[in-house]
């Protein structure tokens, strides 16, 4: 049991980015989590921000063009013939 008032929407939204980034302490994190479980509007907002963040995260991989692949292969091949400790050609 706690005497603390429940978190308001304003407070929850102010902490939302840090909540989604995993930057809140455990107690704060749980407070936001409880608010989201009880507030449909804030929950929808949080889901939207979470999905958008995930979409940005998906940009972590880029398609490799044949020409760049060839450049990298050439660089890697140079390591096998160069003396130890030399990066060869860079």
């Amino acid at each position, binding site marked *: 049991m706690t005497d603390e008032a429940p978190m308001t929407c304003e407070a929850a939204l102010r902490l939302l980015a840090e909540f989604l980034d995993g930057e809140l302490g455990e107690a704060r994190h749980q407070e936001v989590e409880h608010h989201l479980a009880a507030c449909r509007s804030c929950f929808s*907002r949080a889901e939207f921000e979470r999905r958008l963040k995930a979409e940005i995260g998906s*940009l*972590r991989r880029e398609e490799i063009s044949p020409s760049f692949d060839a450049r*990298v292969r050439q660089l890697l091949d140079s390591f*096998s013939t160069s003396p130890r400790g030399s*990066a060869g050609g860079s």
Partner: protein
Amino acid sequence: MTAEAEEHRWFEHAVQALLPELLGVARRLAWNPADAEDLVEETIAKGWLARATLRERDRFNGWMIRILTNLFLSKYRFEAHHPHEPLETEGDFSLFERMHQPFLLWWSTPEQEFLDRLLREDLVHAIEGLAEPFRIVVTLADVEELSYAEIAALLEIPIGTVRSRLARARAQLQKALWDHACQAGLRKEQKEVGPE
């Protein structure tokens, strides 16, 4: 096979497997495709030279991404692209709130519709349009998934600055996506389905 040949073969395979990720992070950081490819090549060369310092091969991916990030940031700091460039922002812009304006409520869940229609190129374009300090902080937080403390250490700025810069960067990113959505027909579609 000699130990050296085995090491070379292992490094080659590990780099090939990680290449799409190395280029992805480089593209988000460096923006310019040619600079991004140069950055990846430099990272691979540096990784090969420093391979003896990698204690566990399981940590290769994170280790290489860190080398790439540090190389980029050292160039960024050295060249001091825009050290005092004013960072204009859109304040507290929220895409979610914009989509929940009354005139758009014909869609039951406009934010879901928006995300379902969001194209990779739209997002890439929006990130590329950010001022460099904003693009870097978004990439470190959302693409590399670094903590605020790690970002603060890499950028040599206080954690509070990371927090505020990230908030402004995300607001600007959402504003760019909103503007693009409007140009791409969000309003037009609302007009088509709305009552007369």
